[in-house]
């Protein structure tokens, strides 16, 4: 999707609601309310965290690949119950979304983000920087992501990505 004019103008109310969705996304994760994170997606959704080098070469391998809301829940379960990781804080900083298109009830956006990570005994560092390539729909009366691809520039990952981008 390039930066062409939306097929239908996006109403200011919808624009504001999309802004709220991103604010909720960042706040939910950074407050550690991981159980609420899958609720920001439609039941049938696709979420991937993919290195920019793979994305640009058309290589499909993703660092995280969830093909349904249920798979997002499995990620949350892993964070809570199964994975060993050093505790840390995440901080998402999400820029204003660029709205690329609004067709058949689907808003396509492209949005810059940065995720900072703070571990005990270490200086805060940039963990992951990139852009979200998203599709947003109205579902059960609210906006949700039906597709979210986190394309990251920071392809040399410092140690691990333990929490959702």
């Amino acid at each position, binding site marked *: 999707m390039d930066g062409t004019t939306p097929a239908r103008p996006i109403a200011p109310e919808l624009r504001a609601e999309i802004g709220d969705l991103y604010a909720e996304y960042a706040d939910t994760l950074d407050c550690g309310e991981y159980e609420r994170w899958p609720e920001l997606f439609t039941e049938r959704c696709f979420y991937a965290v993919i290195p920019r080098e793979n994305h640009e070469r058309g290589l499909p391998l*993703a660092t995280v690949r969830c*093909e349904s809301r249920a798979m997002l829940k499995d990620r949350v379960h892993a964070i809570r119950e199964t994975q060993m990781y050093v505790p840390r804080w995440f901080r998402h900083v999400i820029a204003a979304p660029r709205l690329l298109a609004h067709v058949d009830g689907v808003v396509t956006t492209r949005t810059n983000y940065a995720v900072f990570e703070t571990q005990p005994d270490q200086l805060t560092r940039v963990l992951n920087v990139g852009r979200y390539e998203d599709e947003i729909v109205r579902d059960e009366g609210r906006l949700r992501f039906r597709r979210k691809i986190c394309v990251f520039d920071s392809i040399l990952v410092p*140690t691990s*990505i333990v929490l959702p981008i």
Partner: protein
Amino acid sequence: MDGNTAAPAAAPAARTPWKAGDFSHVPYWIYRDQDIYAREQARIFAGPNWNYVALESEVPNPGDFKRSFVGDKPVIVTRGADGAINVLANRCAHRGVQLCQEHLGNAKEFVCPYHQWTYDLQGKLIGIPFRRGHKGNGGMPGDFDLGANGLPKLEVAVRHGVIFASFDRAVPSFEDFLGAKMLGYFDRVFDGRPLKVLGYSRQRIPSNWKLMMENIKDPYHASLLHVFLVTFGLFRMDQKSAVQMDDTGRHAVLVNRKGEQAANEATQEMRAFKADMKLADPTLLQPQREFPGDATVVMQTLWPNLIVQQQSNTLAMRQMVPRGPEAHDLLWTFFGYADDPPEMTERRLRQANLMGPAGFVSMDDSEVMMISQQGLDPYPDATAVIEMGGRDTVDADHTITEVALRAFYAHYRQVMEI
């Protein structure tokens, strides 16, 4: 031979000595001393060993190249006009500039941006601007030999689509280097079918490279650390397994067979086992048998820089690039076969969720690498205990053993003369 400085004296005088013949204790100074690091670069990575650098399918056409590493030294893997593979030092013969900055690409020649010295795909120096000077001024000396000033070329071995390189002319054949047993396991995944790269993953892990090698030679931890492996029976001590080494001890395989998610006497000692855990979306783990025999996971460590991963249907090369004594990069190349049906590719991509920097399994390991280094680094004179399964270095038909670590250190000490 390229830049191998004379090795410094080993076992720094101020350090706790490492008792001769003791492979079941490892002093922590080997994970953090700079002189050990330099000695490893010279003797191991630049020594008579085959370092993994690329897959042939990454450079399918003449002129294709890939940037890679041998130890911490950057190299370029090229396919020449003749179709043959070359591995060249990524360093201009003039002033040392790193010529190639792109991960993958296609080129007719390599031109150094600094003074435009130009090399062909075999590393031969083919052009120097103002070589003859200008109007009688300057120029290179008349006896300057282009032929003697190319990019240093490494020895190359290609087997079934996998490319290895060595700075040492005295390196044995790849087949002899692996030995029959390890070659058998290598050919199990690399059976000659063309490979297809699915994508890359890269991590900088703040630990010595040997801790990563040890991790994949250690089946004991798999039943304890990894809830995912244990719960879903992907790798567990109560399943039919084997730990095997080559004659030198430098290479190893861990072999396991998938079992059931059922509690038994053995799972009682595994706190990681969760009898009632279910995936909300079980399509994540629906492995399909694709290799001969009943092994469902074979993890092979090839001295000095490669892990070949076959866990269910997720296949990857994990290349280690040491970054000083206290860090290494782990470069993952996930692949399948060119003739995979789309469902198999999907399966591989889904199962890749187990691996890499956010993997349900591998994340546990990268986190452990980090806190291992943090724990041992301030205590160089203390030692690790590697006595699980005994003090010997012979193959085992179970996983409650650290034998492959002992075998690794038996070889390591011989090569390093420490």
